[in-house]
């Protein structure tokens, strides 16, 4: 890996983390959603730096739309979506600190103990990658992807149903 690549990778990595922090530092729901979007975009850019063109671009594309949809749901359901009220959105701080700490330690352990063998010497070309991905998704992994898609759809519908408050005419 060349120095430039490493620098870019580090830059996007730091950007992803920074936007991730912004998600929790802002009071505005919309800003929070957009910050999460750009955090994910930065991860997509990391994919691109690592020459996974298809995955990177896909990540960048999907996150733009997904996070926008999330933003509108936040605006719809939350009070004070603009954050002008400076409402504190944090909660269960001790639990989160512990969870975060344990997660960090676990990640470090994985990083130190994994047997890194250096980058794959010859990355296939982007079109070849796309072809291989297609064969993977439409072959061995098809069942996994299809069932995941179905579960997400069910979850979306269920979440919306739950979120809508019952109305009087609905209850006999």
């Amino acid at each position, binding site marked *: 890996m060349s120095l430039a690549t490493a620098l870019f990778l580090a830059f996007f990595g730091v950007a992803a983390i920074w936007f991730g922090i912004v998600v929790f530092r802002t009071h505005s729901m919309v800003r929070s959603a957009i910050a999460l979007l750009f955090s994910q975009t930065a991860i997509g850019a990391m994919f691109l730096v690592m020459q996974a063109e298809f995955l990177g671009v896909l990540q960048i594309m999907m996150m733009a739309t997904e996070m926008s949809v999330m933003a509108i749901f936040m605006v719809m359901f939350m009070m004070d979506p603009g954050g002008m*009220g400076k409402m504190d959105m944090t909660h269960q701080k001790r639990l989160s600190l512990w969870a975060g700490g344990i997660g960090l330690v676990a990640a470090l352990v994985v990083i130190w103990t994994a047997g890194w063998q250096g980058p794959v010497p010859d990355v296939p070309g982007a079109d070849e990658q796309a072809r291989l991905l297609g064969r993977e998704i439409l072959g061995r992994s098809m069942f996994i992807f299809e069932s995941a898609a179905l579960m997400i759809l069910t979850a979306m519908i269920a979440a919306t149903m739950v979120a809508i408050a019952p109305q009087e005419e609905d209850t006999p």
Partner: protein
Amino acid sequence: MMDLSGARQGLLRGFRGLVAGAMARDLRAFVIPGEDIANARGLDLDAAGLIRAVTPRHANVLLIAGPLPTALADAASVVWAQMPRPRCILALGEVDLGPLPTADVTAEMSQAGLISGLEDLRKLLRNGAFAPDITEFDAPALSERIEYTCPMHPEVVSDEPGKCPKCGMFLVERRVSGAASHGHEGHEGHEGHEGHEGHEGHEGHEKSSTGSTQAEKAHHHADAVTSAEASTSYVCPMHPEVTSDTPGSCPKCGMDLVPQAEAGEHAHQGHHAHHGHGHHAKPASEPTGPYTCPMHPEVTSETPGSCPKCGMDLVPQAEAGGHAHSGHGSHKHHAHTPAQEGQGGHAAHGAHGQQDAHSEHHGHAGHGAAPDIPGIEPHFMSMVELTEGKPVSPDGLVMEWIDAPFGPFFPGLPSGLHMVLTLDGDSVAGAEIRGMEAAALPSGVALEDFAASLADAVPLSPVAMRELACRAAEAATGQTAPKDVLTARAAAVERERIASHLNWLAGLARQAGLAPLGRRAAAMEHRVRTAKADEVAEQATSITSLLHVALNRSLMGPKLTGIGTLQGASEGPVARAAGHASDARHGDGVYDELGFEPITQDEGDAMARLRQRCAEIAQSLDLIAEAGAIAIPVMPRAKGDGHGMATLETPRGPATLHLTLKGGMVSSTHLTTPFAALAAHVPDLIKQMELADALTAIASLDLDPWSASQ
């Protein structure tokens, strides 16, 4: 060399000179009161090559097309403040600009005046777009002052912070628009002007409810509405024994019935609203500590800090109560955090006012406390609690509602129509029409002057008004005109019907984004408005082809069909589009001789109204051809006393004028037009419609707020 009233600060040098030249060639006008009025007053903006801006933010010319009522002049000052500098005013005709600065260019009210005025403006802009010294603009409608009020005793209002003399609580601050200060005499003159006007982005007209100023207004407003609704009894202003539960007209004199509450309570409503605000301010169940959590009202503390349950900052209790505005004491109002103040467009404070009325239908009592879930602190961000007390839409989704002002100069509405729409997302949860205060008709004037001022006051149908005055005067004096004159006068009214319907079509096309069709209809309107009978006949084919295009435009059907179906209207083209063959022309001797038969449609939706008006244009063309000549009504000379009444089918429906003569002078008058009855249908008509559909529905009614009963 006169400076431009709205010059931008800077020296006119180098690049700025180039820019000023470009500005002079790129005039973008915001037309006041609106394009429909400008068309009706004989201005052909397209022919003058004038580009119109849809919002004052994109305009650099404020084109004032003729006289404005005072209320509109105030609204115009807000528009002016919203326009970015360099900006200029072109006033046509003799206009009292009210709070606006002196017009940069004044010209006569005609097409030639418009063109020469634009030419002068270009020169002015080229030389004066930038000036080293600029004058700030200020107007009462823009000013905002901070006043302090006691959360418990709303009648306590002070200009300085302090304690309430009644209960010793600290007064809380709030912002009040200078324009909304009618309730508190004696407090004007303390306006703390905030910021420079150019940067204010003021809320009065185009902006959403920025900050609490608007919220305050909304509060007043919503409560006032509720009180008006509470007493739904209508009474005739002339015959107090006539009362009715529904709006309508008096069977004895034909005048519009007015809400009974309005008669006595009107003067107090502003104040009244305040009381309401105050009473809500402190729900009975509120606990007693000075600090409380906005989410957990049971948490109270003597000292500031954070809530042990959710970690939010505790807020002073008085403040919490003051803003929570929880009308139903037993409800806990977590939803309204105190600091939501100033949130503007995103949190519609106006909605709180609405909730009072709303909760009668959708009680929220059913929402109990959220069940405790193990591992999660009780009440943490429970949607049920967060949204408790918020108005619920029919789709069950609880959202912040926005009160957005539309008008009086909104490009998609008839000019002068001022509405406040309560928006639930993109659909209309409630609507309110704020009437236009029409200029009072003069009394004690000669008949001819009276007809002229009546025609001026109703610029969209001046000829019909003149004819109406004429008929009433004839009824009062017992004179009658020769038959051929009557026929020619009827033809003049029919010509105006064509022009008025074309003008309406142009407005509808503009609103629907059909710019070329709108231009064509407006151009045709200019050709017809003052044409002679034979000239009208020459235009007949091109008018017919225009109507054909309008009716058969692709996607026009899906756009208009099923929108704004109204079966309840009793008069005018709107009623005829719904199948009620009520037409004041029917049974009128003059029209009978011309072979008039009312036309009707069935569906009563916007598409039917389009078809109806197109059919009426064709019918009017036939009537004019039958009449053969057009004559503008001339008022009869009058002597002596008398009372006369006349009803005429104006382009928007029947208008009735009562006229009392004393010694040959007009001593008292009363005009009834279809506007009030039609406008009363609007809130119900557009409820729960999408915003775009609602605006289409309103446009299809062809409301004329200028003709509000006088």
